[in-house]
């Protein structure tokens, strides 16, 4: 049983702290080159390996990541 | 319940009045000369009758912050202490005023400065009405002169506190706190029901029902523009108190050539000195302050127009005299008489002071 995950990042509220990046088990997160309205680089998925485990959301101090999962 | 005649100390009267006026919580700390307030409350066990919470804290700093926490949920919460303890409470008092939290604080004054003495004094006037803590704020301040007033003013304090969402200070002294006098009780007021609490204090933090936003009790406002607006609001509140809630008493002032201005124990002594003066043919009156804030400026100015001299009687180095002079704009010969260190002046001394300092 495998899962396909998707995350939605509230990029305007992300402060680019990067705490989520190293905790992703499948290494699909990186900080963007672009910046949001406050000048922060924001987190984003850089591949489609997300399994919806929500590790990133759990450590996000500002709760900007919502996580969705589907069984495939 | 008809009014009962009782005999008790001023401190005990404060405790009985707290229970009878529907107080929800009392948080205190021992300090002479007012420890009987908490001792009486503990002996009465109101938690078994009215449900009132009574707790001894680890310091006055803690007890005033317990008052803050309890009162900010919209409950009727009080404390009592004496001068050094009230000094420790100053931070709490300015937070209470800044967060607009209604509550009742009793100061049974003793001699200062520092550890000072445990005998009575009135040298906390400035601390009480000129703001002992930081920032522009005022405590509505009542000065009882008898055990009956110690009792009655607790009831009155609750009305003012919740009407203006402001702390109320009952400023007494060791003499009134410790002496026993007759008093007539008042009908008990039940503690508020939950509905009454929510109606009387909708701003309280008692848990956010779904139909309103969350209540926040704070005195913090980092936005200067908003903090200035808030300060104007406070000043308007104090102005309204000054307009509507001044209390004082005048005795024999109509034909007086001279008047004593005094409050609390000093006013009782001045009363006797006035009678002695009258017996010697000196027409003296007494202007007794009941509210120290708001100060009866207009009313005193009115009386002062008709007299040749004013003797302020206060167990201090002369603090209230400044407000008297402000009221009369120094147009009347005004002098101070007081004893220090907890020594209570005698009527004879007061009369001599009038004769030497004012009349001669």
């Amino acid at each position, binding site marked *: 049983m495998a899962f396909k995950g998707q995350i939605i990042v*509230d990029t305007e509220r992300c*402060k*680019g702290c990067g705490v989520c990046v190293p905790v992703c088990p499948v290494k699909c997160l990186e900080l963007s080159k672009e910046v949001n309205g406050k000048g922060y680089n924001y987190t984003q998925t850089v591949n489609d390996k997300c399994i919806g485990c929500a590790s990133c959301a*759990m450590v996000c101090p*500002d709760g900007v990541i919502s996580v*969705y999962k589907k069984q495939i | 319940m008809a009014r009962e005649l009782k005999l008790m100390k001023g401190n005990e009267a404060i405790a009985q009045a707290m229970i009878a006026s529907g107080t929800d919580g009392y948080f205190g700390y021992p300090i002479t000369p007012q420890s009987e307030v908490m001792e009486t409350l503990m002996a009465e066990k109101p938690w078994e009758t009215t449900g009132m919470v009574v707790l001894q804290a680890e310091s006055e700093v*803690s007890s005033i912050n317990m008052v803050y926490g309890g009162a900010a*949920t919209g409950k009727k919460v009080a404390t009592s202490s004496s001068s050094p303890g009230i000094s420790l409470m100053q931070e*709490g008092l300015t937070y209470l005023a800044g967060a607009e939290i209604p509550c009742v604080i009793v100061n049974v004054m003793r001699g200062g400065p520092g550890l000072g003495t445990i005998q009575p004094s009135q040298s906390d006037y400035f601390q009480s009405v000129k703001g002992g803590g930081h920032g522009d704020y005022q405590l509505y301040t009542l000065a009882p002169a008898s055990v009956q007033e110690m009792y009655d003013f607790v009831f009155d304090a609750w009305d003012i506190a919740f009407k203006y969402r402001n702390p109320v200070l009952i400023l007494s002294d060791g003499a009134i706190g410790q002496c026993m006098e007759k008093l007539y009780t008042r009908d008990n007021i039940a503690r508020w029901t939950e509905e009454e609490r929510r109606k009387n204090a909708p701003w309280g*933090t008692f848990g956010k029902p779904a139909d309103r936003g969350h209540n926040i009790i704070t005195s913090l406002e980092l936005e200067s523009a908003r903090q200035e607006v808030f300060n104007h609001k406070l000043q308007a509140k104090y102005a309204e108190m000054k307009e509507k809630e001044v209390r004082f008493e005048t005795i024999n002032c109509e034909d007086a050539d001279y008047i004593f201005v005094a409050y609390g124990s000093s006013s009782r002594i001045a009363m006797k000195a006035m009678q002695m003066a009258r017996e010697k043919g000196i027409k003296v009156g007494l202007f007794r302050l009941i509210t120290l804030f708001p100060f009866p400026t207009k009313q005193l100015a009115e009386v002062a127009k008709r007299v040749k001299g004013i003797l302020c009687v206060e167990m201090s180095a002369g603090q209230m005299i400044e407000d008297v002079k402000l009221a009369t704009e120094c147009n009347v010969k005004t002098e101070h008489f007081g004893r220090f260190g907890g020594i209570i002046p005698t009527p004879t001394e007061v009369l001599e002071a009038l004769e030497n300092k004012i009349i001669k």
Partner: protein
Amino acid sequence: MANIDIEARKQELLKEGYTEVYTKTKVLTDAVMHYCPGCGHGTTHRLIAEVIDEMGIQDKTVGVSPVGCSVLAYNYFDVDFQEAAHGRAPAVATAVKRLNPECYVFTYQGDGDLAAIGTAETIHAANRGENITMIFVNNGIYGMTGGQMAPTTLVGMRSATTPYGRRVDLNGYPLRMTELLATLPGTYYVTRQSVQNPGAVRKAKAAIRKAFENQKLGKGLSFVEILSNCNSGWKMTPVAANKWMEDNMMPNYPVGDIKVDGKIAEGIDVNRLVLDHPLTVMQ
């Protein structure tokens, strides 16, 4: 991904058969938190709000915030809140709870607020066994005022007031308030957790949940310390600060339950309770 189409994107995913695994709890307001990027305060706020949400007690909870970085906590929790003077939250909460026993009351404090100026209030609320939940965020520094030494600053640790490292001869040893409170009969549950990785977050949330459940059962004081980074104060990136915390704070402030159901947890070495020293930065 622009902000506006978050809701639209969500609906798309739900239509595609995805289920929502995680999203910010409604017990947190929409206010953007002022905490520095990557600060443990934000994570801790989230966990408390999630516990309140899951226990369905938003309408009965009253929070008390301190003076310090989390002074504005009341803007972030959609529950009734009081702002306490510096160090006084335990006294404030004592009265809130005693006068409103049906409310769930929690205090939220930093190390300066709880273990320096608020020491008396902390110890006496614990000693009276007040039936409240105390959250203590320990980042070894005064954050809000710009990184000064706190009671929990480690020996040798730099701060704005110990620029050459904390010295025992000048500033004494760091204070392990949590262990100290565990020795008081009034405390029922005493634990130290952290929030720097998913595993730690799960344990921290479980601890916070247990603390609130203890309060529901009227068990007395539950005390949850959360070790946290302080990126600005320590002058490190968030990820580096979390690493530094694991390497330096955790050996000195061991994570785990210290007291459970009113008894010292097994495996807790009593010597640690009597505060053996030295609590130093691992060079």
